[in-house]
């Protein structure tokens, strides 16, 4: 009679992917992201013109048949430039967050798990980074390393490191005290294994949510640095740089300023929607007032 021995089990909680697909907010966000990432990936095939190709006869063309979103001062196709601009934005945002997540997350988990002077040294270092306003620190790093796409990526990555260190440390401190970690230690498991099998799975969810939110801010960050002339350098397309170039000719044609900005907003909104939905799904306290009536 195997059934008699079976313990009553709680109904299985739906996993995060199921929850994400049930939330309208995250579905809209994911939809936006699929479009944005798809456009970026397919840019070389779907862009009507090369991003830096100039058409002197078609300066400031209005949106229409030849140029879907119009053209800029040099007669370059805005749609094509936005597609390639997305590549830069998403690449910089993705890699900088990946950098911050791996370096910061690891430092945070190590600080939390090892404790003692390791914890003190790592977290004080993070506090020092936190003492600087992020944009100012990023600008300083760019000035030291010289402007460019790779530098932007590193600068954003570095300023985000302490955020992920804090996010990684918190859950580690809690997990470290759990009975199953004690048991693993008693069984003689090595520290790195305990961290990998017991600590990491508990840290990964908050880190993932933070990463989604930071992807949104990283895109804004990259575009702001490019706007200030410290990010991607001309003639390569970057959305922030496009707004900055378009601004000089706002009265002749608003499109070179309007569309790249809209493109930035769309990508950021996509990540913000998903990040917001994830936060709500994981924290029942954030459930809105209308759900309890």
């Amino acid at each position, binding site marked *: 009679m195997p059934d008699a021995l079976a313990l009553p089990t709680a109904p299985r909680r739906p996993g995060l992917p199921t929850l994400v697909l049930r939330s309208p907010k995250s579905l809209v966000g994911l939809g936006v992201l699929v479009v944005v990432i798809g456009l970026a990936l397919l840019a070389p095939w779907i862009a009507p013109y090369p991003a830096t190709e100039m058409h002197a006869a078609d300066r400031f063309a209005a949106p229409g048949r030849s140029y879907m979103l119009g053209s800029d001062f040099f007669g370059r196709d805005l749609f094509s430039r936005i597609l390639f601009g997305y590549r830069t934005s998403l690449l910089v945002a993705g890699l900088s967050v990946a950098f911050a997540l791996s370096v910061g997350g690891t430092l945070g988990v190590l600080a939390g798990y090892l404790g003692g002077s390791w914890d003190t040294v790592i977290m004080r270092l993070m506090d020092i980074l936190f*003492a600087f306003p992020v944009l100012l620190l990023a*600008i300083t790093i760019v000035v*030291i390393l010289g402007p460019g796409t790779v530098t932007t990526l590193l600068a954003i990555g570095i300023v985000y490191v302490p955020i992920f260190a804090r996010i990684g440390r918190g859950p580690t401190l809690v997990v470290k005290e759990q009975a199953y970690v004690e048991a693993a230690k008693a069984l003689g498991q090595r520290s790195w294994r305990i961290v990998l099998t017991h600590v990491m799975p508990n840290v990964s969810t908050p880190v993932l949510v933070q990463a989604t939110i930071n992807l949104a801010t990283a895109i804004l960050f990259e575009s702001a640095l490019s706007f*200030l002339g410290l990010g991607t350098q001309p003639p390569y397309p970057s959305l922030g740089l496009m707004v900055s170039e378009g601004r000089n000719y706002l009265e002749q044609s608003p499109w070179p300023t309007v569309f790249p900005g809209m493109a930035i907003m769309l990508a950021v909104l996509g990540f913000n929607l998903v990040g917001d939905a994830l936060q709500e799904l994981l924290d029942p306290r954030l459930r809105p*007032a*209308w759900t309890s*009536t």
Partner: protein
Amino acid sequence: MQRYIAKRLVLLAPVLFVVSALVFALMRLIPGDPAQVLLGFENTDPEQLAAVRRDLGLDRPITVQFVRWLGRLVRGDLGTSARTGRPIVALLAEALPFTLELAVYGLVLAVLIAIPMGTLAGTTTSRLADAGMQTLTLLGLSLPAFWVGSLFILLFSVHLRWFPVLSFPALWRAPAANLWGFFLPALTLAIPNAAAIARMVRASMIAVRREEYVKVARAKGLTEFLVVRRHMLKNALIPVVTLIGIIAGYLLGGSIVVEQVFAIPGVGRMGLQAIVQRDYPVLQAVVLLVTFIFVLINLLVDLLYVFLDPRIRYA
């Protein structure tokens, strides 16, 4: 409480020291010779270069340079601009009021927009109203400030001519014209921060909604308006105050972009110009000043938080 404040104040000195040391070190990492910048790139006479290096103390060991620099810093001497030769303290004194006004104005607008919006979103029983507010706040968080500012200029200054372009008279000379001229930059700066604060107010209102004292207040027969105003908002605003403080610090950084868009001669624009002109003493002073203010604001926020929430005070 007093011990906590004393402890935090004592810790401030080492923090400021480490920040200063780091800023000094970072500035030394910038490629290029400050003496060459001062002399001009066309002048390559090695003797003149050596003389300038001697004058600037660049021939001394880095530790000696740091101690001298720190000594001058403590006396309030930030050196002179490599470009104009003017004392940097005087340059900062001209630029800082613009930045501070922009930040304060931006913060006030952000709070004025955010608190009613967040309160409404957190207390409404209409799913549509909540969704509307949430969409607005997420949009606000997704807008690039430099783009919004540019469109504001195009629409309100160039087309409609409601606001002046590039006109920032001093506050004490022409208060009304000043507040009018600063309105668009301050609003640009306020939008993402208003969105962040409104989200926090909403989340915080939702959290306090289930508290016993709210139920008691309702059971007493208080009107919904009084329940929200007297009982919910007061408690919900504790975490919001911290966020507002954090944002106050970030506004200083964010104003770099807004100052550039609206050509406001503040500290951020001064820093950017220093980068273009390779005027590193000025850049160093700007980074140091903004970071010092940032550290001080963070300290104030921590103290305010303890003051507002007795649970932390007695823990």
